[in-house]
């Protein structure tokens, strides 16, 4: 009996080990890159694709990550602070030694869509889980475009990851759990614009990489698709139809917000500022319309739209209101206005500001404490810097101010605690 049991345990362990080994060796990985891609593109084809590739690369926002401030174009080097360590983006200029100059068409496709580069597995900081859904034609176009850039002789930077995260092959496990085998984004019966919007949202612009919360394995949690997530200490808000509506957007305003980065709901900050800067401001009117139509679940962008009703103010204690009002008049009102109206082209309004309407107060609190640098937006717009008030305001004053602003203009319960503010400092 005992021997039988031992044998059974050993068998299970052996099969388990075999299975793990098979996963590790990548035997279970399924490439979504088809056979025909092994066939190189002709010089003629490459040339013909460059222009389209430039647009696709912008829509996919490749550049934002594959360059550093003041660094060589497409040469990578941008650090990504992950919970496990620091990863650097790579040189994707066509330099043969440091970049992708020696990569074949198929190798490029596999990197972008399978997450398996010429030199091993990529880390999912590269959003291949989303780019997996790109069409082969779009990937070809980006390939052609990148190959037409100047080669940059810039060496890649070494990642700083502890064992076992530094073993790239280990990503086979992540991929097994988190990569969908389905790559289509098209839904039969939905309009062309809606489907284009879905492709833009899910594949090209990879919105879910930030706006969909992550599960235990750090994969996108599909059950909470686009419902908002925490990212580097700030909230990437819910951008489902309900979330956008709650922030005060209607489909038309939202489409123009993605183009200009500024609306009555505020100005893009943090990573979304860069997304507008590098990517969405250049999207065609049709694509912006499609993206908005998809997110608002409409067949197409309407001609006219009614903005959602402003939220009902929530009562706060007299004590909170008096503390907050004094603070507001003393350090906020000169720019944001006594009525929260802001100054056009200079300062965002607060009365209609999306940050005040989020369930989580973290973004607002962070801004109050640390401020926002001056930012230039498309079309000669610029927002003046907002000073941080960490040195001037106590935790209590910040909590009161935040609660009062959110209750008055955002319709949110005054739930911010002094502790919460302290932890953000």
């Amino acid at each position: 009996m005992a021997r039988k049991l031992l044998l059974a345990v050993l068998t299970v362990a052996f099969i388990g080990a075999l299975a793990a080994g098979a996963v590790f060796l990548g035997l279970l990985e399924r490439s979504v890159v088809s056979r025909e891609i092994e066939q190189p593109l002709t010089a003629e084809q490459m040339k013909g694709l460059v222009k389209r590739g430039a647009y696709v690369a912008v829509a996919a926002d490749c550049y934002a990550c594959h360059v550093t401030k003041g660094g060589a174009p497409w040469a990578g080097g941008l650090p990504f602070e992950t919970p496990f360590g620091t990863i650097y983006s790579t040189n994707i200029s066509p330099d043969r030694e440091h970049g992708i100059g020696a990569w074949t068409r198929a190798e490029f496709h596999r990197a972008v869509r399978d997450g398996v580069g010429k030199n091993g597995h990529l880390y999912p900081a590269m959003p291949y889980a989303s780019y997996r859904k790109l069409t082969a034609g779009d990937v070809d176009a980006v390939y052609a475009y990148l190959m037409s850039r100047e080669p940059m002789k810039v060496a890649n930077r070494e990642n700083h990851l502890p064992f076992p995260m530094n073993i790239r092959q280990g990503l086979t496990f992540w991929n097994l759990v988190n990569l969908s085998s389905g790559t289509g984004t098209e839904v039969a019966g939905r309009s062309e614009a809606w489907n284009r919007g879905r492709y833009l949202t899910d594949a090209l612009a990879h919105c879910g990489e930030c706006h969909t919360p992550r599960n235990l394995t750090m994969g996108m949690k599909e059950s909470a698709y686009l419902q908002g997530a925490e990212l580097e200490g700030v909230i990437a808000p819910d951008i489902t139809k309900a979330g956008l509506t709650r922030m005060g957007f209607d489909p038309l305003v939202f489409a123009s917000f993605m183009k200009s980065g500024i609306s009555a709901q505020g100005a893009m900050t943090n990573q979304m500022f860069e997304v507008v800067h590098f990517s969405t401001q250049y999207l065609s009117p049709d694509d912006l319309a499609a993206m908005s139509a998809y997110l608002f679940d409409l067949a197409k962008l309407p001609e006219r739209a009614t903005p959602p009703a402003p939220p009902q103010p929530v009562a706060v204690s007299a004590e909170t209101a008096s503390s907050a009002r004094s603070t507001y008049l003393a350090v906020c009102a000169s720019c944001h206005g006594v009525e929260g109206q802001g100054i056009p082209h200079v300062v965002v309004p607060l009365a209609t500001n999306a940050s005040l309407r989020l369930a989580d107060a973290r973004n607002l609190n962070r801004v109050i404490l640390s401020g926002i640098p001056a930012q230039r937006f498309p079309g000669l717009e610029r927002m003046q810097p907002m000073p941080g008030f960490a040195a001037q305001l106590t935790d209590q004053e910040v909590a009161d101010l935040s609660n009062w602003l959110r209750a008055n203009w955002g319709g949110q319960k005054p739930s911010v605690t002094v502790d919460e503010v302290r932890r953000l400092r």
Partner: protein
Amino acid sequence: MTIATRTLSLTINDEAVGPIDVPETMMMQDFLYEYLNLTGSRMGCGQGICHACTVIVEKGDGSLEEMRTCITGAHWFAGRKVRTVEGHAKRDANGAITQLSPVQQAFIEHFSFQCGYCTPGFVTGATVLLDQLKRNPVRREALEGVISEALDRHICRCTGYVRYFEAVRDLVLRTPGLVKA
């Protein structure tokens, strides 16, 4: 239409001011100009960028902080000790200036400014920097960087900053205790 007011008391240049009724929404700059005729702090941008309008707030522990009066309400200063640019030099019993502050003197000696519009802000900023260095001296190698960082936010449209910079560096180097070996 009536403007809502609140009573304000504070100390400015070592003198008690108030209690006095001041509109709730009035900025400190307007209060200094319109109520006290202290017109030395300059209104440059009015939106918190140029720092021509700054004053010193003397904190409880004696340390100094620079505040922009264009974007800070008068009532924020309630109960606080403020030093405007008029309060830096020594004066005799009649209020006549007898001796400039070391920072003011250094700016004169170095011909630091031209039109002078930004100067009250630079006097304020450099005075706060000196106070900080007195509390936390820096190493000599770090000094240039520290000066640039501290005064970077002050905008001057005439000079190119070089003589302001040199004046501050010179003053720091000849004031004992601000620079560590």
